[in-house]
């Protein structure tokens, strides 16, 4: 479904040149980046995934997400799908396509516009209502106070309490422009996902049908080919 989720092999595979049971895991995590207009969601994703920054991003027409591949350790590679809210999907609810199969979320507000923090509970409410982990629990969430390079004078007080009240793991001051704290923030979520094993490998038996134009047996997985 959601693009090429199934093409990334999630099952453990024995590496071929080595008959010892040396498992290499390639995992796929879908994370959401949510927040008000202009807080820097796209900037954060581009900086994190491609290490670029521009002062003016238009929405990337046609793209659902960006992928960052992380070599976590000798055994684990993680393909991180970062889902931006489509540039203009911002006045109200997001579609179920956006939430489905997500494993974590980063909520972003803009330190230069403190009022963007006020929207966080609303985004969080929609997120909690519309998504859950495979075991039924809430998605882990972190809070990013972005544009930390501009000014650090009016960091809202009580962010610790705010996180606690709203069941947010923790918060970070970030800057997409100066590449501050993005890796640490994302690693918090990745650690969480890995540690709690909340991800499930989409197993072949429970896979719903995926309609596809041509049969591309990627990584040995057959797709349903229709025409």
């Amino acid at each position, binding site marked *: *479904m*959601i*693009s*090429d989720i199934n093409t990334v092999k999630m*099952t453990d595979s*024995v590496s071929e040149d080595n008959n010892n049971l040396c498992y290499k895991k390639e995992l796929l995590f879908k994370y959401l980046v949510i927040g*008000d*207009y202009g807080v820097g969601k796209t900037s954060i994703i*581009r900086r994190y995934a*491609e290490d*670029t920054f*521009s*002062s*003016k*991003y*238009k*929405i*990337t*027409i*046609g*793209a*659902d*997400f*960006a*992928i960052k591949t992380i070599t976590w350790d000798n055994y684990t590679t993680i393909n991180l799908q970062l889902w931006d809210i*489509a*540039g*203009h*999907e*911002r*006045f*109200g*609810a997001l*579609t*179920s*396509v*956006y939430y*489905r199969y997500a494993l974590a979320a980063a909520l972003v507000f803009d330190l230069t516009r403190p009022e963007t923090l006020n*929207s966080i509970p609303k985004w969080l409410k929609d997120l909690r209502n519309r998504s*859950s982990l495979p075991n039924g629990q809430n998605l882990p969430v972190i809070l990013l106070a972005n544009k930390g390079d501009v000014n650090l004078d009016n960091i809202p007080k009580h962010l610790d309490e705010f996180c606690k009240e709203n069941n947010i793991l923790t918060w970070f001051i970030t800057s997409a422009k100066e590449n501050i704290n993005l890796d640490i923030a994302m690693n918090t979520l990745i650690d969480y996902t890995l540690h709690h094993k909340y991800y499930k490998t989409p*197993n*072949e*038996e*429970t*896979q*719903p*049908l*995926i*309609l*596809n*134009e*041509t*049969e591309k047996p990627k990584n*040995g997985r*057959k797709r*349903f*080919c*229709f*025409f």
Partner: protein
Amino acid sequence: MDTLPTEFDLIVVGTGLIESAVSAAASRIGKRVLHIDSKDYYGGLWASFNLENIETVFSKPQSNIHNAGSEDVQLDANQKKLVIGNDLFEIIDIEQAWHVLEKDKDYDSSLLKTKDVAEAALEVSEECNAESVDAVTKEVPVAVEANAESLVDEIQAIAVQEAIEKNNDVDIQEGAVAVIEAKENAEKETDPVLEVKEEFNATNDIHVEAEEAQIVEEEHLNNVTSLEVSAAAVFKPWSQESIMKQSRKFNLDLTPKVQFSRGEFVKLLVSSNIARYAEYIAIGRILTYLDGKLIPVPCSRSNIFSSPHVNVIEKRVLMKLLSTLMDSTDKDFSEYDGKTFKEYLQDRKLSPELIHYIVYSIALSDDETSCSDGVKNVKRFLASLGIIGQTPFIYSMYGSGEIPQAFCRLSAVFGGTYALNQPLSHFIYDEEHNFKGLISGQQKITASNLVTGFEYAPNEMVEKKEMSYISRGIFITDKSVLEADKQKTSLILMPSKDGKTLCHIIEAGHWSGVCPKDLYIVHMSARRTASAKEDLKYYVDTLFSNDPNDTKPNVLWSFYFAIPDTNDKDYTQHNSKNSFFCPGPDSDLDYDNSIQKASKIFDEIYPDSEFLPRAPDPDEIIFCDDSDEAAEEVKEAGAGDLPQEIEKTEEKQDSAEISLN
């Protein structure tokens, strides 16, 4: 919350299927689209709800009209405001009821005791039922390699069979089986369990596990069925409380639909690449009600041959008839002009049982359907057979409400602006009936064209005629209408007592993502004649029981309503050239008709553009470092143009595919 931009190429009001498809198509070709809805959920009458929400959704005032602030909006001299929404459109016959006690503790304790014992027994049996068993018994992953020849195979098989028939000394049934076995292509119709095993073989490290699973499964089935029956016999395990606790696992469709796996709609989903936003499961069987029993309709070649419900001669007759119909042209039926399809079949001297199967299930017709429509339907049915599983149909995982959202997501990803839960009050028109804009809250938003769901049409633009309705029932039940050894999503096509109408019934379980484990959702849709509840009473009484000792399912919760069927007739009356009203849900089984309407509206607005060309996959999009100039270029590019990066990658993709072929 920020205010909306105020100038668009197209405003789409309502997020129903047709509206969403037009919205996606317009965004896809680079139009600036505002897609707006007064509700706080996607899908309008095509939405799905969890259990908690469906109860509240109709209890809120249905009106889409908000007036606050609109007086402050300044209009031009020659402009007038029309109030959004009309009196014609109404959801009626709403009736919701629980048929279980409120709390677990309300059950009398002697019953609860039996329940504990039974539950413990079930738990034990579940333990021996290793997780993999569950997977193996699932009907979902039918490993189909569909090819365009499947129908040809079907016909070929008939030809082979006819040859056998001429040779007469061969036992026909044996011959038929041989045909199936001989034909490699027929493997698409083999038992799903076996196919799962084949998949396992391919990834051969877990192969052994599958074998084991199969054995466990058999044991499990032997153990559990008897246990479950006896357990169900002594207690009512569900309470309102225990069901409500799982409210969010429900996805209850207002407008449940199945799709022909090779129908127009599925073709469009695939060709436009919107299929990436949707997941499907196969409809595993079609059931009909004949001689007081529910029976699986033999529809694919293999289940015609293996069905115990048709005898050897009937098998032959049925196959032959289907191949005749398949190859027929309109003029073959000229003598049946004005006659019904049933009459045509009766003249072929078919047995009443066969006629029943063909008319109600394969031709999706009733006693009054014309011969030509019946034939058309049979062709359509056969064209989608052999692609997935045993029936031509697929059902949207997590409910039909996913489908409009898939279009909305595409629209948003291509730049569409989405605004739900908006205080819509008026449309603005000039004296020449041209749509100028709309008023939402205190904002005036303008656009060159308006596409809107019929429910938002102003009274001035609606023709007052009598509305037809679809009677709907949604039921939560405790078991399947016909227990099977595998999880099967079922389509039940049940003619009314007099044969004059056909009730469409879909039964789905937790594997379809529409309800929690151990519960079933049954959707009924029929033409409304009296009221939703009365219209469906016959089907409810036939399929369900309220005696816990009965083998029929008990209804735990029921919800009746009737929605306008605005697809049959055009209820709008206006001469505005830039306003387009989308009909709501229709009484068809599928979306083919609706998607055609969407495509037609799109063609009228943008006659020179393709309706939903293929959207690139994420890996085909190169993130260009959009410098300010590049961004401007995109903006200034002709309205129909797409940003360069996409066009380029699409070209690349095409050529890659060509070289593969």
